[in-house]
Every structure is written in C-alpha cells, then in structure tokens.
C-alpha cells in the first residue's frame, strides 16, 4: 500500500488540487465561486490534454482548440437537431474529435517543429471557415440551445451544476490519463521522440503510430469539453468555437506551469486564469489588463522557462520525487 502511494504520489498531488478547486464552491456555497472554478477547471483540463502532445511528445499544436470546436459542433448538432441526450452527445463529441485527430494526425504529424505548428493553425482556420459554410450547422449564425433542453436538469441552475461536475470528472480523467501515459512504456516512447525523434526510431519506437495516438489522446477530452461548454453557453458559432487566441492561451497555461509535467498544466492554468480574472475585475488595471498579463508572461518565459513546477523540480531533489 505504502509502495503504491509512493509510486503514485505524483498523481495524488494534482488530484488533490483539483479536488480542492471542485470543493471550494461546495464549501462556500457560492454560485459565483462555482463559475470562477468552472473557468479554471476548463482551462486545467484543456491544458492537461494539450500537454500529452505538447509536453510529452514535443509537438507544438497551435490550433488545438479545433477539437474543442469540433466537439462542440458535433454535440450541439445531435442535441438540438436530433434530440440526443447529453451523455451521448458528450461521448460523440469525444469520439468525433478523436477520430478527426487520428485521420489528421496520420497526415500532419509527419511535419516537424514550426511546420507542424503552422499546419495546426491552418487546420483550425480551415475548420472555422468550413463550418461557416455548412448550412446544416447554422452557417455563420451557428446553433442555439433551446432553453427547454435545460428542463431535464431542473432548469438552468441544475444544468450549471451538472456541467460543473461533468467538467470536474473530465479534469480528473485527463489528469489520470496524463499520469498513466507518462509512467507507461508508451509515454517513455513519446518522451524519446521529444528528445530526438530519429534516435527514438532507431531504438525501436514506432514514432508515427505513437505520435498519432498521443494526438488522439490529447484531442478526445477537449472534444467532450466542447460539448459541455457550448451546451452551457447556449450558443455556438464558428468564431467562438475555433478561437485561435484561446488556442494560444492553452499553450501559455502549459508553459507557465511546467511543460511535460502532470502537475504543471494544473498549476499554470489555475494561476493564469485567476490572475486574468483579478486583472479583469480590478478597477484600476482593467484598462490595461491585457498588457499586464503579457508582461507577466514575458517575465516567466524569459526567467523561468521550465515553468513553475519545472523550476521547483530543478531546485530540490525531494520535490523532484513528489512533483511529476
């Protein structure tokens, strides 16, 4: 038992953090806190998903938000047009995102470095333009969620609760996936690809297959999150679903916390979202909040490039054992 705990301590810490975040609105009984924590959890789950590809494999997916948008569109379509229930919609969102990642990954993961990054931007922009041209998806207007769809949850209040706890569950899931992948042989293969792809292939890692599966794993949770977010939001349209700026923020979250670590995306996403909110709602800084956030980020990239968790790990051998 002790041994198991010791081996998995790197998992329990991020899970505890998430549990704390999830419990906070419960303890305070405040809806306002729940919404704030929702933004944070969403960011954590997105960042942790991206980290599987970006952190472990070293492939910079700039347009990762594309899976969030694809999931959202698939989910809202089956719910509002075909009348599916939310569980199936979330499953479908995840499946479609995973499937597209598989097909896409087999093609664009052949590209390396900046070329791959550029291709993912291209994919996102192409999807955005494409959905705007498909009338079945509402074209540029997008789709609305009729209020009556919230009735099964007992109105919007129940729906907000439901979505919140679903996102908590997905966040826990993605953290477990992150940890298991990192510790697995598959994960070691990915990290070998990150260090030197050619050498990894020489060592017997089937790089194309490994990369593709990493891509798929990093896409399914954003797909599911997209369904939940846009269901809650009540509306989806191409510009909101495939917002490149959010995609870049995802990378920022991962970098800030510590790339390639399980805890890093949790810390990075949480801190960043909290700071932005603080700046956003501060009477004096809100006019220049974007610039202040930019300056903070620059300072971190320049002076703490390994991110917060990476920095802690590098400072102390004992921390290195417990922080994954």
């Amino acid at each position: 038992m002790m041994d198991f705990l010791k081996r998995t301590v790197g998992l329990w810490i991020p899970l505890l953090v998430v549990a704390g975040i999830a419990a906070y609105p419960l303890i305070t009984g405040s809806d306002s806190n729940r919404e704030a924590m929702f933004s944070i959890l969403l960011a954590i789950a997105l960042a942790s998903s991206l980290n599987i590809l970006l952190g472990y494999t070293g492939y910079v997916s700039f347009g990762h938000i594309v899976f969030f948008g694809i999931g959202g569109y698939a989910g809202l379509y089956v719910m509002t047009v075909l009348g599916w229930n939310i569980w199936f919609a979330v499953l479908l969102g995840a499946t479609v995102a995973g499937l597209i990642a598989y097909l896409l990954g087999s093609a664009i993961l052949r590209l390396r470095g900046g070329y791959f990054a550029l291709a993912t931007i291209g994919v996102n922009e192409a999807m955005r333009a494409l959905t705007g041209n498909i009338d079945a998806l509402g074209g540029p207007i997008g789709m609305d969620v009729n209020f009556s769809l919230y009735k099964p949850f007992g109105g919007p209040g129940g729906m907000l609760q439901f979505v919140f706890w679903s996102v908590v569950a997905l966040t826990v899931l993605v953290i477990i996936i992150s940890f298991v992948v990192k510790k697995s042989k598959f994960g070691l293969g990915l990290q070998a690809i990150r260090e030197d792809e050619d050498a990894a292939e020489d060592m017997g890692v089937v790089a194309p297959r490994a990369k593709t599966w990493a891509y798929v794993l990093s896409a399914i949770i954003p797909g599911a999150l997209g369904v939940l977010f846009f269901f809650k939001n009540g509306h989806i349209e191409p510009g909101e679903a495939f917002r490149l700026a959010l995609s870049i923020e995802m990378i920022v979250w991962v970098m800030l916390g510590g790339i390639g670590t399980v805890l890093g995306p949790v810390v990075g996403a949480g801190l960043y979202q909290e700071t932005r909110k603080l700046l956003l709602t501060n009477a004096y800084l809100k006019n220049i909040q974007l610039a202040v956030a930019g300056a903070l980020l620059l300072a971190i990239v320049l002076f703490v490039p390994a991110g917060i968790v990476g920095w802690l790990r590098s400072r102390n051998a004992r921390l290195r054992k417990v922080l994954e």
Partner: protein
Amino acid sequence: MRMRSVALAAALLMIMSVLAGCSSDDSGSSETTAAPTETTAASGGETKTITVGFTTSQTGKYNESSTRQVDGFTLWMDQVNAAGGIKLDDGTTYMIESKTYDDESSSDRVQELYTDLATKDNADFLISPYSSGLTAAAAVVSEQYGKVMITTGAASDATYQQGFTKVYQIYTPASRYLTSSIDLLASLDANAKKLAFVYENSKFSTGVVEAAKTYAEENGYDIVMFEGYDPETTDFNPFINKIEAASPDAVLGGGHFQDGSTLAKQLYEKNVPVKFISLLVAPPEPAFAELGDAAMEVAGPSQWEPLVQYTEDAANALGMDWFGTTGDEFTTTYTEAFGDAPSYHSAGGYAAGLVLQHAIESAQSIDPDAVATALDATNVVTFFGPLKFDTTAESHGLQVGHDMVVIQWQPGSDEPLAKQIVWPEAGQTAAPMYPRG
C-alpha cells in the same frame, strides 16, 4: 480632432489609473458614478440602492458600440440619481448604482461574470452585453437567478425564441431591420427589382438579411446576389466585382460599423452604378460622415435618431403613456456629458434604463417577478419610440412596439453632409435622394 482628444484622454486615464493603483489597493472596485448610498430622503422614507449589473466590451471588437451603449445607460443613471432616485409611493427611494466587468468581446467569461454580478455583487437587475451572441450566453445566467435582463444591442430574434422568461428586448428585432428599406425603394421606383445582398457573417446581420430576403421575394423582387463576408474583411473588391457583374438596382446588407463603412467607401471608389444603398449599423453612426463623399446618399435603418421626435402629445393622441425625457434633452445632455453626438446604441442604453425605471415605478417594487409582470404589461412611448414586449411563450420578450426609421446622408446646409430621415413618409425630414449619383 476627435481622435486626438480620445487618445490624449485615454493616455491620461492610463497614467492616472496606474498612479491610483499604486496609492490605493482595492477601495473602488465598484464602478459607481452615483452619489450617496445611505441618506435619508426628505419625505422620511428609506433610501436604498439598486444595483444594475452588466458587462461591457472594454477590449475586443465590440468596444466602440458597447461603449456608446454604456454611456447612454450611465447618463440615465446619473440623471435619475441627480433627481433624487426612483421614488415609490411607500416612501422608499432607490438610488441607482452600476457594476460592470470587461467581457473582452468574447463569450468565454460572460457567464462567469454574470454569475458574479447576480450573486456576489447582488445585482438587482441586469443589462445585456453588446451583441446577440454574448447576450445569448448571459441570458442563461440571468434566467437561472430569476433576474430581469433588459437587452440592448442584441437584435437577433433567435435569442428570444430560446424560451427565456425574464429577458426583454429594447431594439426592433433583426427580422424587421431591412424591410423598411425595401418599402422605401418600392415607393421610389417600381421598376427597381434587382437586389444584391452583401452582408456580414454574424448572427445578427445574417438574421436581418434572411428575413429581408424572404420579404423581398414575397414582394416580387429578384435577388441577384446573396453573399456573406467574414467579419474581419477589409478588402471588399471581390464582392464589388461580383456586384458589378450582377448589375443590381440596389445593394442592401452590411453588418457592423467597421465593415459597413469600408464597404460603402469601396463601393464609392469603384464607382459602382447602383441606384440605392442601404446598410446596417454603420450609416446611422455619426462617425460615418468621416467617409466624406463616399457617405453621400447612403441610407441605412436606425433604431433611433436625434431628428426623430416622439412627443408626449402624439403619444397621448394615440392613447398611450409617455415616459421620460424628450429626444432633444437626451441629445443635448448626452453631447454635454460625452462630447459626442449620441448614436442609436447610446439611445438604446438610455432606453434600457428608462424602461426599467418605468417598470419599477408601475410595479411599485423591485421584486423581479413584479417587475417582469410590469414589463409584460409595458406599452409606453419614450424618446426612443414606443416600447412593448411580446408575451407569448414562443418569443417572450421580443420587442414588438418599436419601429425603425431609414436615414440617408445628404448634402447639408452648413456642413457637407447631413443625416436626414427619409422613411417612414410621415417622419421624413427630407425627401429621399434617388437614384444615387
């Protein structure tokens, strides 16, 4: 000139805000411009504060229109407070306070911020953000907390067909935006039958043109072009070349300010021979005149214009109630307060406050249910025009009382360009100029 003062003011504000941020920490998180919170009213009744919450787009693409909307609302609030607040018969006086956050023109945080407003800041009433997309997200939250939300700057019909019960629209809905322009064209030229629609791909403008297209087809028009453009478009030449090839009599469409004014400018530069142009949102904005010759004879629908005169007498003649300030007073006080003539977004913001005040006064309460009942029964004429809400379950809260006018830029007497009202005929300040050029 205007731009320079804006830039200077902004720079100064920035310096001040940084200085203020150094000296004091978190003393002024509330945005109130209102005066005292706890004073005893002369009548001996209690004085309380109503908090009205909303997000504004201080950053991002909706910044310009959102700012005007908020300015209009702020003017209403300041005037009510200066006049001693909203007084109820039981002696209670309500002062108004507003609470606002930046939504960054994106729906990411809209629900989070509205939840803050509804729960943490205990807002009694909500006003919508600018734009139909953000409003749809905010409405979910306002419904959850049973708050009344007055929407302004959110014209899309779809939001009101989602089943909300306490969301009330100030603007004439999108489906009726361009139909009056078609009526105007019909009255001018029975032979002008070819229409080209070029519009922004947004929730609002697509809703507008689709309704207008149906209306035009029912009335025997031939739609020779029907195309949307990306909201970020700056180069309209591909569209203009297509317009030229389709040789329509009239071009209808547009979207928001930036794209609409650019489209007008490039249509002018390309000397496109169409007889009539009517665009959404951009032409009624005073800044449209900066286009110079390119603005000449361009028409557009407007929710409200300083020249539109709804009067108490006219309202009474129709057997309807009159409420609030006059159009002239609004224009004068707004110009004094913000240094710029109001646009219809400003008027919409002011009217949102006004309709809320009217409902509170008729309900004699600030209880959301009582106010909602009062809003359902609202049938009143204000400087903004008549206001009345749909009370059916299918499209509750949709604006059904208010009508739009069509304006056109024409040569002015002391300035090169003047905005004239050319439709409806009864409200004309000048005859429409037709055909163009």
